[in-house]
């Protein structure tokens, strides 16, 4: 009985700690962003949000995110699939490499591409002669976003696929199913929710990426400025209303993602309950 009582006290202490922490570090700043964004009144906010450059930055952010998420979904599924269902040499090495972007600073990620595709880079001559520009252009931004977000999807899938084992696939193969049919009918239902969850995480991270993109973008207003870069630009120019208004766009996008995440988690849980 005493133990239960202790746990009751502990529970409340922990709850209070969490709430105080979240209020100070998350809620307060969020309220402040909204408040500052509306300091110049609704008109000022709408003007700042519908500013030509703000819209272009938003559009670029969305585009870069879609590209990065699309490519990482494909790569993530491939990587998770080959790491869990096949045995080959260098498997451990590959698995370690996938985690690299999490450990490397985004600035370095940006610099890597500048060095590879920039004027001093070994590929510059070839790319330039074909009229392809990567750094200080949209492809560079997409590349940087892909780099920083590429472990997100595969890392969600690998544990699920490992837990599932290979028996079901073998059973399907023995009945004559082809690889793609096996993936579609047997493997995919297992990873569906993990994949969606991974996509959500990847999207959230891709939208907010600043460091690597900052190195590669070249900060061309209306051309290569993503939302986070645009916000920084306005902030440096002491345009607080503009900066915070643009921030609020990112915040709204993040909230949408958060709600999606919640829905996915709930639905996925329900289905897992049925199948456990």
């Amino acid at each position, binding site marked *: 009985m005493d133990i239960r009582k202790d746990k009751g006290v502990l529970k409340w202490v922990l709850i209070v700690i969490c709430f105080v922490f979240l209020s100070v570090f998350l809620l307060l700043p969020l309220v402040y962003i909204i408040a500052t964004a509306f300091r110049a009144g609704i008109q000022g906010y709408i003007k700042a949000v519908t500013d030509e450059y703000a819209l272009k930055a938003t559009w670029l952010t969305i585009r870069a995110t879609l590209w990065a998420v699309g490519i990482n979904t494909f790569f993530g599924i491939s990587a998770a699939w080959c790491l869990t269902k096949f045995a080959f040499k260098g498997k451990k090495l590959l698995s370690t490499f996938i985690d690299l972007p999490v450990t490397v600073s985004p600035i370095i990620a940006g610099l890597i591409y500048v060095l590879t595709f920039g004027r001093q880079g070994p590929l510059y001559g070839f790319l330039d002669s074909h009229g392809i520009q990567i750094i200080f252009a949209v492809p560079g931004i997409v590349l940087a976003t892909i780099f920083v977000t590429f472990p997100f999807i595969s890392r969600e899938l690998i544990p699920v696929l490992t837990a599932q*084992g290979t*028996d*079901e696939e*073998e*059973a*399907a*193969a*023995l*009945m*004559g*199913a082809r690889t793609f*049919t096996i993936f579609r*009918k*047997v493997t995919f*239902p*297992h990873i569906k929710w993990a994949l969606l969850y991974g996509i959500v995480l990847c999207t959230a991270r891709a939208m907010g990426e600043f460091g690597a993109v900052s190195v590669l973008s070249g900060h061309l207003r209306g051309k290569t400025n993503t939302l986070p870069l645009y916000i920084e630009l306005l902030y440096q120019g002491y345009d607080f209303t503009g900066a915070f208004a643009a921030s609020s766009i990112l915040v709204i996008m993040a909230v949408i993602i958060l709600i999606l995440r919640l829905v996915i988690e709930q639905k996925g849980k329900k289905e897992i309950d*049925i*199948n*456990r």
Partner: protein
Amino acid sequence: MSETTEKTVEQIENPASYVELKGINKHFKDFHATKDANISISKGKLVALLGPSGSGKTTILRMIAGLEHPDSGEIWIDGKLVNNIPGSERGIGFVFQSYALFRYMNVYDNIAFGLRIKKVPEKDIKKRVTELLELISCEGLEKRYPSQLSGGQRQRVAFARALAPNPHILLLDEPFAAVDAKVRLELRTWLKEMITKLQITSIFVTHDQDEAIEVADEIIVTNQGRVEQIGTPQELYSNPASPFVATFIGNSIQVKNFDRFRFFEKPEEDVTAILRPEFVSVYKKGEKVQYSKSVEEAVVEDIIFRGSNLEIKVRLHDNLISSVRSINEPAIEIGETVDVFIFRLFVIFKDRIELFYNRSLNNETVII
């Protein structure tokens, strides 16, 4: 053309064997999982691959299924060399140890899967699935997911799924390992009945000798990657081909100094003998015994209640020997001095195993 000729030759050479493995070797990195295995299985037989864990029995099964590929040797099925034929075209049904039912498909879709892959018309699929559900007495469970089934039901659905495309051979990997003891006994009987009814050549893997002896027509004993012996349960029991089989089958103990037992002698110095409970009788002092002149005295050390009978352990010349006694016979207690009679034992020579009988059996027969 040459392949057809080969086929005919093969069939003439060995008309009885339906599944045949010739000189099969398989390595997993440094581990030699299958060592020069030669197996021949006739059509319609229910065969057990029996051995301790790690003895290579599952590897053999998976090679027959095409899930693993031998490093060397040939696998023949129905007169065809199948080494390079994928598992899906070998006409086999496979029941996995964990059943491997598709967790995101209901029972109906699970059983129908193989038929849908084969592009069987949906109408015929329905007929076949209904027929199979009836066979496994799972009517009404079509809409359930595997997680909503009991262990026994899952096992039977896995069995039905493997049978759906009408395979010629059924392979089962430890089919009873994942269910509890009572269900296991039911399933054993059920499976034997099913397979006998369907007349399908079946091979199942097990580490449980009781299971193999009860269910199988023929048993292939494996040990450390080698096939030790192939034979009927009776043959394995009465004529073990190797020391391993002699000890693995039956509840055996090894005896070194068996020359000290009355009416037994050692033919060579360094041979040991194997003694099973059914070779030994234990009698209460004063009990009327057929071979009363030939018994030896021993002290009871332990009595284990086995439900339908008792296992009596006695100490005889430094060996702890087991014997089975009916619960209907006069009770024996621990510490009691009893009379022991050993009927026979297996003597293991370097190259063979011989059955030695108690010499007094001969003498008394002669006298009568």
